């Protein structure tokens, strides 16, 4: 089991995430149609399209430059909330990754935490608000917990995937506090949040790519 990942591993993780989101575009839009305006799948497809383009233009210099290219690419799509939120996450992760050639589980935790911090400058959502944060915050916490126990990167990302999936599933029983779904009140009960679902797909793909 790998104790660290390098830029090529990060590239493989991103490519797996891009493929997974593309496979699930229609499912994500259908989830959004129940509580929003039905375009989350299209917005995510646009975001991963921008990520894919950034990957082909990547200078192969570092993990940092890879993540920064992906984040800035996402920031420059016309996808409503999706671009600034996902873009901020990856731009923040690039800053957190720093100049390192390889990341162990602790360094990876720092990268994700820095990405989360950058994202939290754009969104005040917390766990329980029925947003992407319901998957992201527990996933980042799981990576840190695993790193503190000296787990491998694989084990840390597996724990993150489980935490993200559980967090996304929990949104089914939540009332939305952000985005268009908040205006539906109790009527969103029983519907899983599309943003949290996308986020859990990201961590699932990351974990499976390792």
């Amino acid at each position, binding site marked *: 089991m790998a104790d660290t990942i390098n830029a090529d591993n990060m590239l493989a993780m991103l490519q797996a995430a891009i493929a997974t989101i593309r496979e699930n575009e*229609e499912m994500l*839009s*259908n989830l*959004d*149609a129940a509580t*929003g*305006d*039905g*375009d989350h*799948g*299209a*917005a995510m497809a*646009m975001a991963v399209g921008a990520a894919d383009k950034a990957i082909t233009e990547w200078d192969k210099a570092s993990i940092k430059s890879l993540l920064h290219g992906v984040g800035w690419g996402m*920031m*420059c*799509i*016309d*996808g*409503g*909330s*999706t*671009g*600034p*939120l996902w873009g901020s996450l990856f731009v923040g992760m690039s800053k957190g990754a720093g100049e390192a050639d390889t990341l162990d589980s602790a360094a990876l935790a720092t990268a994700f935490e820095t990405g989360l911090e950058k994202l939290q400058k*754009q*969104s005040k959502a917390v766990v329980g608000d029925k947003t992407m944060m319901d998957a992201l915050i527990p996933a980042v916490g799981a990576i840190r917990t695993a790193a503190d126990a000296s787990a491998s990167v694989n084990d840390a990302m597996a724990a993150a995937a489980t935490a993200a999936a559980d967090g996304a599933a929990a949104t089914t029983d939540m009332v939305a506090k*952000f*985005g*268009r*779904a*908040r*205006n*539906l*009140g109790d*009527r969103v009960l029983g519907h899983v949040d599309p943003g949290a679902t996308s986020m859990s797909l990201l961590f699932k793909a990351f974990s499976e790519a390792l």
Partner: protein
Amino acid sequence: MAMKKFLNDPANITSELLDGLCTAFSDKLTLVDEKLVCRANAKAEDKVAIVTLGGAGHEPALQAFVGEGLVDISVVGDIFAAPNGPKVFKALQMMNRPAGVLFVVLNHAGDVLNANIAMEMAEDAGLNVKMILTHEDIAPGADTPIEDRRGLVGCVPLYKVAGAAAEAGKSLDEVYAIAERFNDNMATLAVAMTVATHPQNGAEIGDIADDEMEIGMGQHGEAGTGPCKIMTADDTAKTMVERLMAAIKVTSGDKVLLTINGSGATTHMEMFLIYRAARKVLADAGIETACSMVGEYLTVQEMGGFQMFLAKMDDELIDLFKAPCDAPYWTVR
């Protein structure tokens, strides 16, 4: 039922509609970088510029209100989706001038996120921009926090009064103060009877029973305060205008702007029935309807329903509302 619309590749809807709009009105509009709808005859440099942003799919808004006396640049995103922050920044940079830029943003999550990124970039670049957020939806209650109140059709008359003030040569602080005074005294309530479909994926947005309507529906069909059985035009108008009157606290002797904004499938015939009934309720309360708008301004595809908008007007706002303007979908001579 499958979506019935005249479309080509769904990915190209926004660029194709903007190309159509800007060539149809080439004497008034110029398209820059595919998504920036700009005035063909640029405003004098010594006047405050007005910039706005929003998704497509709500035509004629927002971009058909670009023109003399209204908006200088409308930054367009994709269908129902805000444009990206860096692109909005570019528009602010294009319009930057000593007189300043008023940046009008409707309160929707994506619009606000991208506007905030553009404003961060504008501050770093030292641009002279003031941002104003419209949030006049009273569906969740007039006293709920601003972040829970959406920006609906009220942006259009706000462009009008702010745009007229800018054309009159007022300073950025003055234009902002006028726009904010209008913003603080306006309210919108929407009602929907049938849902819209998303033109890129055919998904139906929302769910309304055949014999019901829903007051408080959002711009894209996001749910409001709950469904009820279909009412007559008179009863619907009365229910809605009374809530709006209470929200902006108008009483006998006050003057108002009354707007009926069709959502897409509701006919002008129905809109005039609604307007007539609402105006009568206002008149019975001693309130003068000094300004009126009836038509399709900010739509959402084929949704059935309308937005009723009410703003308390003073003499200066009335003069600005009636001042000359020249945009594809709003001309006053």
